[in-house]
């Protein structure tokens, strides 16, 4: 047993100051060195004949449950332990002094590994594996690879004697900094890493795959300013296979490594993951696996250059054939980017040869293009989601970049006809039996031929019309600012009846089973007989009622400015329940699947369970919701005052995609086939693809478009505050 116990005089504290020491004896070679560990852990005293299991064990301290060798312990008669550099689950690293070189201070790193197995035959196999790995490591010769000087085993533990590096690993440096690393530094380090990967991958007879690239396995040597790769997975030899240990660390490892494939391009992926972590300070181990493409670096750290982001994302391609083909190619790309920032540095890293600069590394086929919308660029410069099997629930903001269309102004659609009234059109048209009906703020209700736009008739009210009409049984109904709900016959526009309330009507009437329902600013919800205009019931709320009714299960559902969604019996007006949304509800609820989905002026979109009256979920936006949602195929489409058209998953309330317009969206979207249509206050009428929010076309009008479209027979009808009603091709 080649261990000598020495009592050493306390050398000037240089990092071991956290541990107190005392010696017994006076430098007598046979005395015991005793150390006291942190936190009053067990003091290990021993003499030669104490009956302890091992002499080495006797000289250990305990730091947070792991026993480490004490300072002054000498291994193999040569290596004197000076301080603990790091403690891990499977291994401990010490700084030691090589006593062979007695006249100088020569340090080494000593890595102590312990085998977890109790089965001696398994232990033997592992020892053989370890010796093989250590031998390979011994043959490697690169300035960025720590040299291995020696190895030995003692009392069931295996020791590696390695080149000592004065510095910290990148994970510790990142922790110290508590924020992303500077881009140029990361580029520099990555160039060096590619250099050593090149060396390893080019190794003969077989390429060496590092397999465990991550910030904690990369050290920065202060004395040479070089990157050093440490831990060649030798410690992994001793890990238990109980849960099918994966070689490599989750988060940095490429998908194919889980299939047992470890090849050089896996190291490229891991380098990409490492760069991503260093540049964003977002640890991939804490995120859902393989979601790098949902978290492009620039979204987390806007200071990163686009070229670097592109380079990283290419390294992170799941398909290995789409990554950088080899470390050299990646290195060239890194050099090119660095050259644009500091050509001299790049040249220095390139062996003195100047590097041609480029502003973009070579691109994979789908490159994210910048958004064209004028507002808030960082919101619109999202990266397209990778195509592939769709997830059941999409976490976070899966934000689609709308610029799959080549350019903003350009994709428009045909206008079939338009019709000018004398004031703004703020409400939405309806089509009934081939006629389109629309109210205008010029106080008229117009009837036009739906196909040709030919004027048929107009009916006058005494003040502006801001709500939308409805029609049934050859009658068309509309409310006006003049407090009155009108019923006109559809053929000639003659008034059949009128019903007076006590304040302007801004809610749009709706018909169900021969009864007509609407709200008024006089705070009542009204139910009238559609044929006669006679009141059947009315229900009092506490503020104006501007939302419109929806029907289901014999109830009507309507929101009010007193913050409630009301569920009333459709026949009697009796209250079933009410839901408190916290702020006014102008939006009309969409009823689907047992849920009432609507927006409120607390900026949320709610899904309320009709049976229990509890909200299943709510989705937060950044502005009021006036728009009424449209629901199709499990998705909810609604516009917000914050300028977005949202697509939200109906089951989970999570965002599927959102599209930013140049203004507010108070218009309610309509869905037809695979497209959604709506207007915005940026004067545009939009058509987007429902699948991903890609722009299909946009049509410019001359004023904001607060109203909603109606679609019939391949024509989109929509009014604008430029006084016109438009008929557009779908």
């Amino acid at each position, binding site marked *: 047993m080649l261990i000598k116990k020495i009592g050493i005089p306390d050398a000037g504290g240089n990092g071991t100051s956290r541990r107190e020491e005392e010696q017994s004896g006076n430098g007598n070679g046979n005395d015991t060195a005793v150390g006291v560990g942190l936190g009053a852990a067990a003091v290990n005293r021993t003499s030669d004949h104490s009956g302890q299991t091992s002499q080495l064990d006797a000289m250990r301290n305990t730091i947070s449950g792991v026993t480490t060798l004490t300072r002054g312990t000498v291994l193999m008669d040569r290596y004197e332990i000076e301080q603990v550099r790091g403690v891990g689950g499977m291994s401990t690293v010490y700084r030691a002094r090589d006593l062979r070189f007695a006249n100088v201070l020569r340090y080494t790193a000593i890595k102590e590994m312990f085998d977890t197995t109790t089965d001696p035959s398994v232990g033997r196999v592992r020892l053989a594996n370890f010796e093989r790995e250590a031998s390979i490591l011994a043959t490697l010769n690169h300035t960025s690879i720590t040299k291995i000087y020696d190895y030995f085993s003692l009392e069931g533990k295996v020791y590696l004697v390695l080149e000592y590096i004065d510095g910290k690993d990148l994970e510790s440096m990142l922790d110290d900094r508590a924020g992303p690393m500077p881009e140029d530094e990361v580029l520099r380090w990555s160039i060096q890493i590619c250099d050593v990967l090149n060396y390893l991958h080019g190794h003969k007879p077989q390429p060496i795959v590092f397999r465990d690239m991550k910030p904690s396995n990369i050290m920065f040597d202060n004395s040479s300013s070089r990157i050093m790769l440490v831990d060649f997975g030798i410690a992994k030899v001793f890990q238990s296979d109980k*849960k099918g240990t994966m070689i490599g660390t989750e988060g940095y490892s490429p998908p194919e490594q*889980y299939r047992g494939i470890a090849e050089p391009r896996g190291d490229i992926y891991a380098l990409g993951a490492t760069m991503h972590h260093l540049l964003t300070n977002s640890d991939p181990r804490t995120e*859902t696996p393989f979601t790098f493409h949902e978290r492009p670096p620039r979204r987390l750290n806007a200071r990163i250059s686009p070229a670097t982001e592109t380079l990283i994302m290419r390294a992170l391609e*799941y398909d290995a054939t789409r990554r950088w083909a080899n470390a050299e190619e990646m290195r060239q790309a890194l050099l090119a980017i660095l050259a644009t920032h500091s050509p001299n540095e790049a040249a220095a890293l390139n062996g003195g040869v100047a590097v041609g600069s480029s502003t973009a590394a070579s691109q994979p086929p789908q490159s994210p293009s910048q958004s064209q919308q004028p507002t808030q660029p960082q919101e619109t410069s999202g990266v397209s989601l990778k195509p592939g099997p769709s997830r059941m629930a999409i976490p976070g903001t899966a934000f689609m970049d709308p610029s799959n269309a080549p350019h903003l102004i350009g994709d428009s659609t045909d206008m079939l006809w338009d019709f000018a009234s004398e004031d703004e059109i703020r409400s939405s048209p309806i089509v009934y039996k081939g006629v389109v009906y629309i109210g205008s703020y010029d106080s008229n209700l117009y009837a036009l031929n739906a196909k040709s736009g030919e004027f048929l008739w107009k009916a006058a009210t005494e003040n502006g019309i801001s709500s939308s009409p409805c029609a049934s049984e050859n009658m068309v109904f509309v409310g006006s600012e003049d407090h009155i709900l009108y019923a006109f016959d559809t053929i000639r526009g003659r008034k059949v009846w009128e019903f007076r309330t006590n304040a302007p009507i801004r809610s749009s009437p709706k018909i169900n089973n021969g009864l007509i329902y609407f709200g008024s600013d006089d705070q009542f919800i009204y139910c009238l007989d559609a044929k006669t205009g006679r009141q059947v019931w009315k229900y009092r709320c506490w503020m104006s009622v501007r939302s419109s009714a929806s029907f289901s299960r014999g109830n009507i559902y309507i929101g009010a400015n007193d913050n409630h969604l009301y569920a009333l019996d459709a026949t009697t007006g009796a209250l079933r329940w009410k839901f*408190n949304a916290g702020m006014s509800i102008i939006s009309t609820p969409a009823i689907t699947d047992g849920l009432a989905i609507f927006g409120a002026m607390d900026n949320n979109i709610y899904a309320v*369970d009709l*049976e229990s009256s509890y909200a299943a*979920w709510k989705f937060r936006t950044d502005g009021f919701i006036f728009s009424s949602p449209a629901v199709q195929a499990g998705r909810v489409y609604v516009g917000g005052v914050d300028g977005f058209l949202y697509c939200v998953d109906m089951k989970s*309330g999570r965002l599927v995609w959102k599209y930013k317009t140049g203004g507010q969206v108070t218009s309610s979207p309509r869905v037809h086939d695979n497209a959604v249509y709506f207007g915005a206050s940026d004067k545009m009428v939009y058509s987007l693809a429902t699948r991903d929010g890609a722009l299909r076309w946009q049509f410019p009008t001359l004023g904001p478009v607060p109203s909603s479209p109606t679609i019939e027979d391949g024509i989109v009808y929509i009014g604008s505050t430029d006084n016109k009603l438009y008929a557009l091709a779908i």
Partner: protein
Amino acid sequence: MKAKLRAGTSEQVSNGSASNYLAYAALRHVGGKQANEDNVFALASQLPNQTGADGDLPFGLFIVADGVSSSGSGAFASAYATKRVAGRLLERLYLPMLGGHEAGVMGGTVGDILAEAVREANTELFAMAGNGNNPATTLTVALVLGRRLYAAHAGDSRIYLFDKAGELTQVTADHSMVARLVEMGQMSEADAASSQQRSSLYRAVGISSEVEVEVYSNTLVDQQRLLLCSDGLWSAVEGEEIAAYLQAPPAEAAAALVAAALAAHVEDNVSTIVVALD
């Protein structure tokens, strides 16, 4: 309500049958392991109608938790999380509903309440980590309110719905590495099932200071059965076989499912809750 404890075995059987809807059977079997690190909770009830609609409001709360053995205290973790979450949900949903509180923003949405309860259990378990122990567990919660299912989930225990047409649908997504790889097209289902990584979870309760809880809500119209189970069941019994057993009433179905898992020499604990929805 009949609760039956068979002395000396690792089984606990209880049947709730206030009405046919939400009649359930919850079974927890040690399976091929030494100790049972799974835990289950079940409560079925009926609330006096507040919404004026036809009939009273059924309320059901069902939980399955599968403790992570390698964490060193799997049994503790799953029991703790189950009880905490059940208690919180009864406190924040069940009692207010009984008290006739008006639903709305002040109380939060059902989804938020579920997710918050799971997150709190996570924070508490994570704070207990130390000395080589890191208590962790999967946690899968199913809440039935009327004809709607709300689920909150982290881990690889599962919720299935079995509809009247005989089709079995998995509601939750497994938070395992292999499931993620299958989802990405990087691994086949068959490889995933036999992979050594099968139990490697990237998300569970107690392993990290934060947990992202997945929340779902589904209508239950047209559904026949609700099934919750730990991976001991779904890894040992094929979907088609599961579907076949689910046709039977809950008690029979649950017993048959466990028996099938045992017959397949499952090496894990097996837990299952079967709830009638017809």
